[in-house]
């Protein structure tokens, strides 16, 4: 069947954005929104990396006076806050935004304007933190600011408030994004894609979204309580007023532990997709992988106390959390088995995305095993708050989050741009990054075991820590160099890469059915699915359905378990209201750093913006007391 050019032109007319700046500000195209998320996150990753290199240079020499303690403390706070709140989670959300509709054969997400709103709020969080840095009111108490140090007595001024409100921005953005992704995956699947036929990637994004919805309220609550303690003299965390310092830690880590799995679970989705395509066979153990993801998602909410083993909680409780924290290694380990098993039973080929899978396994497993060591409440008393745990957290977050992200970037780059990245430069970047990272961070396990605590701006001579610190600095520098090569490859390939065609890797899932780059409307017809690997059907034509409107923006809504078509939903058009609403919300959030009245006053513009956003475009009433009178 040949393409109907007239149909494509009419789809273009319906789905394209306005040109220029107005189109940029009003777009609700999930691909454009995802792209700006990814560009912003990559830029911030670079900035956070520069902060890291600065700190590593400082620590290369004992009793170094190059950086003042204030500057160093700001650096590790900014580095951690940026990487965890502004890079890792948003990047995973962005990959969901970009890929979920494509993998579902849908034309947009469930709530297109909400997606745009998420990005603008996220950007608000970015600007809150980094403009504060430019104005020298950088938060300086780490990425989890424990009271009483972060309370009104020991941190006057507004640094701690900046941190707390940056979190409010990013958490509201993430919550909105998660509702969006979850609703899309549950209700907008193609006919035939029952939950049993849903690829692991979509399961991963669904579970991560649900985890976000259940965990982020905790950090929103606790940062608001901290601001209240600082701004209006509540006593949540002050012992003198009957409050409890540990309450902050419980609430923070109730969010903080699921957060790292919110980063890791989407990464496992990337790995499953890449392993399947590059082993040239359906992934082994789909049910095991899905159930592992569900158990990780559930277990993650029962582990938070392992961040508090040194706090002096009752021994029996600590024992429970030790067992639970080790137990999560079971589903994680089974996932690794399934991926390796798929390669074993398939015909793996080591294109760059697959190299990143290998880098992930080799690196993340080290992090997982050092995690098993820190899971012991007893042993953790020697390991926590030392460079051992710094090594552990970087191994799991970078090995388990960033390396899969790089692999996913290489894998789906042709779908986004229509071009291939250079394989050779991809291999060079891979070697520099993975080799540099391991050289940089493995020594930190040893430094921790040699007694070096974390978050110290310098250390005494004669402790024997110099050599390993210098090795760590060298490795980190190599990794950053590799990162620059990676980005250069991406940029240069954008203009000079070989054209990729729609499906350069022979992928198994539906995103490879659309053109590369995907047009604004994604797919011209609604695909019908009868297996986990719809693109691998021996080259036969893909089955699809017609009927979703072309003259207006419309999407198909299906049932939750069986993906039975239910009805056609109007899909939101481009709108300036998400931007206006996010500006109003930003004004309220920023104002409330200085006065609680900002909440009441700020609610008014927000209300106005939301009214504008949701005002219906239906005709005026012809009956009733407010009917249109001609």
């Amino acid at each position: 069947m040949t393409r109907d050019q007239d149909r494509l032109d009419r789809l273009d007319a319906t789905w394209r954005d306005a040109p220029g700046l107005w189109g940029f500000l009003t777009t609700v195209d999930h691909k454009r929104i995802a792209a700006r998320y990814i560009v912003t996150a990559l830029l911030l990753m670079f900035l956070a990396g520069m902060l890291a290199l600065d700190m590593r240079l400082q620590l290369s020499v004992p009793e170094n006076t190059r950086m003042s303690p204030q500057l160093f403390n700001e650096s590790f706070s900014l580095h951690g806050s940026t990487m965890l709140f502004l890079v890792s989670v948003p990047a995973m959300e962005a990959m969901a935004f970009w890929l979920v509709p494509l993998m579902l054969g849908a034309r947009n997400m469930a709530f297109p304007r909400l997606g745009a709103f998420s990005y603008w709020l996220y950007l608000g969080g970015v600007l809150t933190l980094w403009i504060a840095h430019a104005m020298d009111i950088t938060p300086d108490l780490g990425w989890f600011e424990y009271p009483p140090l972060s309370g009104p007595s020991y941190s006057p001024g507004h640094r701690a408030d900046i941190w707390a409100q940056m979190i409010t921005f990013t958490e509201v953005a993430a919550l909105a994004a998660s509702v969006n992704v979850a609703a899309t995956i549950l209700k907008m699947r193609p006919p035939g894609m029952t939950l049993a036929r849903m690829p692991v990637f979509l399961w991963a994004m669904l579970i991560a979204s649900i985890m976000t919805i259940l965990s982020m309220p905790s950090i929103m609550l606790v940062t608001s309580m901290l601001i209240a303690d600082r701004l209006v003299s509540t006593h949540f965390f002050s012992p003198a007023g009957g409050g409890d310092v540990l309450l902050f830690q419980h609430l923070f880590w109730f969010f903080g532990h699921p957060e790292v799995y919110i980063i890791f679970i989407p990464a496992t989705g990337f790995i499953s997709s890449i392993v399947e395509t590059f082993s040239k066979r359906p992934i082994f153990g789909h049910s095991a992988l899905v159930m592992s993801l569900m158990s990780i998602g559930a277990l993650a909410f029962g582990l938070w106390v392992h961040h508090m083993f040194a706090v002096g909680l009752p021994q029996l409780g600590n024992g429970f959390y030790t067992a639970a924290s080790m137990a999560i290694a079971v589903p994680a380990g089974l996932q690794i088995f399934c991926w390796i098993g798929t390669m074993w039973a398939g015909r793996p080929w080591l294109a760059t995305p697959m190299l990143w899978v290998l880098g992930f396994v080799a690196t993340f497993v080290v992090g997982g095993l050092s995690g098993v060591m820190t899971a012991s409440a007893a042993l953790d008393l020697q390991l926590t708050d030392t460079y051992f745990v710094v090594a552990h957290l970087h191994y799991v977050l970078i090995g388990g989050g960033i390396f899969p992200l790089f692999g996913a970037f290489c894998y789906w780059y042709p779908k986004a741009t229509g071009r291939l990245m250079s394989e050779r430069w991809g291999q060079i970047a891979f070697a520099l990054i993975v080799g540099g990272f391991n050289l940089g961070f493995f020594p930190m396990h040893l430094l921790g075991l040699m007694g070096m605590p974390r978050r110290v701006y310098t250390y005494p001579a004669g402790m024997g820590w110099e050599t390993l610190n210098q090795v760590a600095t060298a490795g980190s520098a190599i990794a950053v160099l590799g990162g620059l090569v990676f980005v250069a490859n991406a940029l240069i390939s954008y203009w000079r890469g070989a054209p990729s065609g729609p499906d350069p890797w022979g992928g198994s899932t539906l995103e490879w059915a659309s053109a590369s780059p995907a047009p604004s409307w994604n797919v011209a017809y609604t695909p019908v699915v009868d297996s986990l690997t719809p693109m691998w059907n021996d080259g036969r034509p893909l089955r699809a359905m017609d009927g979703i409107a072309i003259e207006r923006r419309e999407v198909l809504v299906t049932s939750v378990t069986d993906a039975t078509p239910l009805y056609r939903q109007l899909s939101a058009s481009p709108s300036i209201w998400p931007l206006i609403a996010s500006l109003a919300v930003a004004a309220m959030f920023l104002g409330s750093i200085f006065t609680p009245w900002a909440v009441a006053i700020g609610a008014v513009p927000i209300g106005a913006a939301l009214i504008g956003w949701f005002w219906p475009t239906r005709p005026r009433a012809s009956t009733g007391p407010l009917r249109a009178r001609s």
Partner: protein
Amino acid sequence: MKLARDLEIVGDLSNLPPSASGARNLVWWGNTGFMVIEGTGFALAAAVYLYLLTQASGWPPKGDQHPGLLWSGIFTAGLILSELPNLWVLRCARAKNVAGVRWGVLAMTLIAMALLIPRAFEFAHLGVTWHQDAYGSVVWLLLVLHTAHVITDWGDTAVLGAWLFSHEVGDDQFSDVEDNSNYWTFVVLCWLPIYALIYWAPRVL
């Protein structure tokens, strides 16, 4: 426009209806998602209250008064009773009754506004300020959270009412009324455990 594969058209979706109600509707899931988020927030705030209670030697701490039962009782009774017109509006929405949803949503707007009066008195009779101690802080936290809930839903309902009256009412608007009505039920249900904690836990525990 090069595609990886040819397509074979096997069906037509254009006969599907252009709307749906209840859990079949996409927006219902968005609304539910936000209710889960806020419900989780309330559950955690309740956990904070219970945590501080278990850490304290007396609850309320020595010198703090018990929160007043009169205005909270009036508010709670009024809130529970408001479910009656609320569920009626829900029925009207499902039955696609235009006049019913218009006047019903207007009524809910007025009811919500009226309930804010006893709520204001509740604050005045809490018996403690937020800056007095942790007990005061957490009691105010719970009441402020729920009041924000009521105010935003009142605003929502008012705007909904305004455009129900000024515009044609179609299937999407009936779905919106349904979602709004569900949300009010959520506001009522969230209040009951919070009420028990603020007003009865100090007297019973």
